[in-house]
């Protein structure tokens, strides 16, 4: 263990992912939390730290429902979809500093049947004065629109193609077909279906966009030392970092516009872990949209700048035959959008070798990325 504060993920739990849960977000959160706590071999009363997602049920809801008498640590990362990965570090630091012994993290949402994911994102991104004063009056408002601006510029600069974007979507769906938990399990997606799907914000088509999902994902983190006495094989948090893109709260001044905080975070996380991108057996990439996979493959150091598209096109991200299987669960594009907490859960299952039909054989090192807001980035290196 390279880090003096190594902690471990000792429990994971998820509800089903659907387009209509029929339950409240608090109910979803408590279901996933109870599953994760039981998976960790702990009792609810053992939880003394809580890191909720910035949107959804707050820590107090879980403190009340779990009947916790004295939670002594809570924190929230305001990094949008980069928050769950960044939360791994917050939890690790709290445990190393003696501020908590067992930390619960969760994302719970009715992203499809309740407020859509996109509407909440629009209200929570930084630089609200720019959004309301300089973008909304001119017709720009949704993440799918702003992220497509990045995608097009990357296509112009490097020749990234429609076929490469489609390959991301189709590969994620192929993976989801191996995952009974995926929202799109049993629903094939061909390139023909992809390329003829309705335009949303070109270059983005409908199947370039992630799913809006009802459900919850939760994990439990303890010290690595304590994890050794718990029932599941521990998954060690070896390095975690966050980074912020230049012009962190506005895209218009960012040049190139596809710059991201992940390019700063990834080297920090890998250095801390003493592990490099070439050592990674399975990658969980925050696939809010297809191009954001290509963008992060480059930013994290898995492919050189400008060659992420070719990397995808060559089949490198596929479970079948790829050198870097990405999102065996199907990702946000085809498993469901739980803000990447489901990516952490999947990394843990892969490192436990509990991935079923989608298991990456012999996986020992996983990298998980987070992407949030206007380009906040985070990366965690996990090992078994």
């Amino acid at each position, binding site marked *: 263990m390279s880090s003096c504060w190594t902690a471990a993920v000792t429990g994971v739990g998820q509800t089903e992912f659907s387009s209509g849960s029929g339950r409240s977000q608090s109910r979803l959160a408590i279901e996933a939390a109870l599953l994760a706590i039981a998976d960790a071999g702990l009792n609810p009363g053992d939880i003394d730290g809580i890191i909720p997602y910035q949107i959804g049920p707050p820590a107090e809801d879980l403190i009340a429902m779990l009947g916790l008498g004295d939670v002594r640590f809570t924190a929230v990362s305001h990094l949008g979809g980069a928050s769950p990965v960044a939360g791994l570090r917050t939890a690790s630091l709290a445990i190393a500093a003696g501020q908590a012994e067992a930390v619960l993290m969760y994302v719970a949402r009715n992203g499809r049947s309740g407020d859509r994911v996109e509407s909440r994102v629009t209200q929570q991104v930084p630089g609200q004065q720019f959004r*309301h*004063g*300089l973008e909304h*009056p001119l017709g720009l408002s949704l993440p799918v629109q702003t992220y497509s601006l990045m995608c097009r510029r990357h296509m112009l600069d490097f020749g990234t193609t429609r076929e490469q974007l489609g390959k991301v979507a189709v590969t994620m769906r192929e993976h989801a077909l191996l995952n009974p938990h995926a929202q799109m399990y049993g629903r094939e997606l061909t390139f023909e279906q992809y390329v003829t799907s*309705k335009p949303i*914000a*070109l270059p983005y088509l409908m199947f370039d966009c992630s799913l809006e999902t009802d459900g919850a994902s939760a994990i439990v983190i303890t010290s690595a030392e304590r994890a050794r006495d718990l029932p599941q094989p521990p998954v060690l948090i070896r390095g975690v970092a966050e980074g912020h893109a230049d012009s962190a709260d*506005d*895209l218009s001044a960012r040049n190139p*516009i596809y710059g991201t905080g992940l390019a700063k975070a990834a080297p920090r996380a890998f250095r801390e872990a003493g592990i490099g991108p070439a050592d990674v057996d399975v990658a969980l990439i925050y696939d809010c949209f297809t191009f954001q996979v290509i963008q992060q493959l480059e930013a994290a150091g898995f492919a050189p700048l400008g060659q992420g598209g070719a990397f995808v096109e060559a089949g490198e991200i596929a479970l079948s035959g790829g050198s870097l299987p990405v999102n065996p669960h199907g990702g946000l594009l085809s498993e469901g959008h739980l803000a990447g907490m489901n990516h952490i859960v999947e990394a843990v299952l892969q490192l436990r070798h509990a991935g079923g039909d989608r298991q990456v054989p012999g996986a020992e090192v996983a990298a998980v990325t987070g992407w949030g807001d206007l380009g906040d980035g985070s990366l965690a290196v996990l090992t078994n």
Partner: protein
Amino acid sequence: MNAELAALDGPRPDRRDPEIRHFWDGLTERELRAQVCADCQGVQWPPRAACVKCQSLQLTWHVIAGSGTLSTWTEVHRTGLAGYQDLVPYAVGIVEIDETPVRMVGYIHTPDIDTLVAGERLVVRFAERGEGVVLPVWHRESEGA
């Protein structure tokens, strides 16, 4: 010209915002304005409470060119913005302003979105929306703007 945006019943800017209101005030004078630092003379966009280069709080506003080039754009087919729902599909993108290092979000007026190309020349026109709001609208030089 710009009848479509003149009739737009879309989101209005907050004219009380201490920084951004200067931009909208300029538009009512048919000018594009950007923020300039009185200490280091740096031009910055978007406008902020401090200079991002030297952290000076002494910020002023200068008129910038009403022309530029297209850096990137998206063709919007779906929007939650009132008014703009009647305009889909439309183009909105990033315009690199001539003669000054400013890149700003711009609505691009064209009947032929499919033929937009990166680097093409754009010229700003102004669309009066009533109640003191004037929108900047970018037209293509190739379409006789």
